[in-house]
């Protein structure tokens, strides 16, 4: 209908911006809703009809100023109770970047909600009340960010207006948090003094804190690097679906469709298919309509191999030179996300990349207390929001990486086969929750994903 060739140039700048996924964490009274509302409002991401709706409801309730928390609390029960029940996703954009914000509730079910938000986040904002400093909840949030290996953490020291905008208050909190989070292995921490209510250092630089020379929250979100050097990671390609048109036009086409989980794949590369161990060479890469010589994570592509070998959904294609080992004994840190407990001896399903297999929980060696990072040996079971170590025996071999090496091929779900409930979020390999004596070992290897 409409020719698009000459229009592409006009909005190429917008389409070319990158995407940052981030999560917010903070307890109920830290002002998280106000910060989110302020970010949306001051970055002009709230449209007139949304703001009018908020103003109308606030006025109806007798509130003097529009309650910015109403911008994010979307459900009847949330608005009635004034609390956030579940993770919500918000979208906003500036000229420099697009954002997906996982707005996670800070109350009782904190751990599973924050794990959900953090699992796909490039960055986590941990909010602290300047009057209270680093509290238990702050340490819990830092620990979850470290476990989930969120690459960037922002400590937002809020309510600076209530401590006279004193540099010494901010510096003490920033120092304590940075020391704690670095010990857990958080690779990059940025501390920013803010007042979400007054708007200091959220979108606009504060006139009240001359002593602070760093970025505002939004400036940092706009400039933090999100593209990781994926060439450093070995390529992983979980096969999702086999494409076989069997049509007159494509009688012999057999393509393996999937999303590259990590690394780079090239035509001509020798590959191994797991768990079978069969080998072949990449003959072609179809990147959603065009033939390419090279593709990288997280592109969705279709691979064609030189040899007709038996490959199906759930298999993993990896470079022969750097293929993962397969195992039927999985050791991992899990966060339990269901209301029903997970006990030793439980028969479960494990969903890893595109493969779902039967498994049995052999052992629960320890349960972690996030508040003080202490380990409780052999708890017998895990209940909602517990984090613990598990040993699982699987019915078929899995090509599992350590979560430390790859968030995508090192993560899995445990599922209740009876009703399909997602029981636990698993992170394969070692973590600071593995052993009590390793709790405060910084990760020397760096973070590759």
């Amino acid at each position, binding site marked *: 209908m409409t020719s698009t060739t000459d229009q592409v140039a006009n909005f190429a700048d917008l389409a070319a*911006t990158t995407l940052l996924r981030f999560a917010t964490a903070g307890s109920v009274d830290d002002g998280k809703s106000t910060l989110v509302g302020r970010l949306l409002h001051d970055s002009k991401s709230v449209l007139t009809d949304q703001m009018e709706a908020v103003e109308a409801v606030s006025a109806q309730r007798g509130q003097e100023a529009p309650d910015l928390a109403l911008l994010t609390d979307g459900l009847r029960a949330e608005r009635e109770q004034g609390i956030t029940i579940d993770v919500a996703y918000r*979208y906003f954009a500036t000229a420099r970047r697009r954002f997906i914000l996982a707005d996670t509730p800070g109350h009782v079910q904190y751990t599973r909600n924050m794990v959900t938000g953090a699992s796909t986040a490039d960055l986590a904002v941990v909010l602290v009340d300047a009057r209270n400093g680093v509290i238990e909840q702050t340490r819990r949030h830092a620990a979850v960010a470290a476990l989930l290996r969120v690459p960037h953490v922002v400590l937002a020291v809020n309510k600076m207006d209530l401590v006279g905008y004193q540099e010494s208050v901010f510096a003490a909190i920033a120092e304590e948090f940075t020391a704690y989070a670095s010990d857990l292995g958080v690779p990059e921490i940025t501390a920013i003094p803010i007042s979400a209510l007054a708007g200091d250092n959220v979108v606009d630089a504060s006139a009240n804190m001359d002593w602070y020379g760093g970025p505002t929250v939004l400036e940092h979100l706009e400039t933090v690097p999100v593209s990781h050097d994926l060439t450093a990671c070995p390529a992983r390609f979980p096969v999702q*679906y086999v494409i076989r048109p069997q049509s007159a036009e494509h009688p012999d086409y057999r393509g393996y469709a999937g999303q590259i989980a990590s690394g780079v794949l090239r035509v001509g590369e020798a590959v191994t298919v797991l768990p079978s161990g069969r080998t072949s060479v990449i003959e072609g890469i179809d990147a959603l309509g065009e033939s390419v*010589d090279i593709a990288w994570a997280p592109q969705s592509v279709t691979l064609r191999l030189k040899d007709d070998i038996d490959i199906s959904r759930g298999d993993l294609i990896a470079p022969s030179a750097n293929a993962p080992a397969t195992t039927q004994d999985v050791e991992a840190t899990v966060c339990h996300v269901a209301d029903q407990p997970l006990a030793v001896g439980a028969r479960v399903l494990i969903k890893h*990349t595109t493969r779902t297999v039967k498994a049995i929980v052999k052992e629960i060696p320890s349960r972690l207390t996030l508040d003080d990072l202490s380990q409780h040996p052999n708890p017998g079971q895990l209940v909602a929001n517990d984090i613990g170590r598990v040993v699982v025996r699987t019915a078929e071999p899995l090509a599992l990486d350590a979560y430390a090496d790859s968030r995508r091929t090192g993560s899995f779900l445990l599922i209740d086969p009876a009703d399909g409930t997602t029981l636990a979020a698993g992170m394969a390999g070692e973590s600071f929750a593995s052993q009590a004596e390793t709790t405060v070992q910084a990760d020397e290897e760096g973070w590759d994903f």
Partner: protein
Amino acid sequence: MTTTVAHVHDETDAPYALSHLDALESEAVHIFREVAGEFEKPVILFSGGKDSIVMLHLALKAFAPAPVPFTLLHVDTGHNFPEVLEYRDRTVEKHGLRLHVASVQEYIDAGKLRERPDGTRNPLQTVPLTEAIQSLKFDAVFGGGRRDEEKARAKERVFSLRDEFSQWDPRRQRPELWQLYNGRHAPGEHVRVFPLSNWTELDVWQYIAREGIELPEIYFAHEREVFLRNGMWLTAGEWGGAKESETPETRLIRYRTVGDMSCTGAVDSDATTLDAVIAEIAVSRLTERGATRADDKMSEAAMEDRKREGYF
């Protein structure tokens, strides 16, 4: 061998980066392929509106050069724009697809649904939709819902489990971790799948422009006889028209959403090209639904209430 490195843009000049649109496209394709790999009988809800058109385009790319392994389902309110129905049928024909139609009119004629006093048929779609899912035994139903559309939709999962009554319970949703979607369900239950969850209205338009996707003409500015009701410009049709107190006039308008004619309003616009539409959306201070959908204005939680009942 061709050497093409497509759509690489990054302000940091990193060697391996994906543009925003490529990242969204890649994610949506991954979701389509997951469903194809794990479900027995998926269906795409296809209304001929821009979101479902983008969904179909992504599905075509995801499985090329093989055909899309899904059928389509349209819930026809009986009050659709004729241009959109024409587009729908032409598209189905062009791609050799199979279309199921669930008809609100048939339900009314059979006495199974009653016309509302306000004449709006959007809320009436839920019953034909859920009955079609049950009788045709669909186990995965793709919808074009986006989280940026509405505050209740912001809470929606990509894979959203529905019980045998198609009900959505926002308090009992499965946590959705990493890109590991859990589609397990009991017989009779099904999963609603939203591949465009992370897209915004502007993303959809930019993608349409980049991919050169054809749209029904009502999305572009044209002169049309409309009348004002509850602050919205409506087009008369088989569903009804202006009352005595309402005066039809010819205006230059376009539609931002395509739905039931009785509750989908037009906006004043001179945007006749994709470029102009994108420029208009980029500076608009009204949300898509706030500007043009009467059904969302019925109460503060209208969308949530309809979703709970099984609406998409």
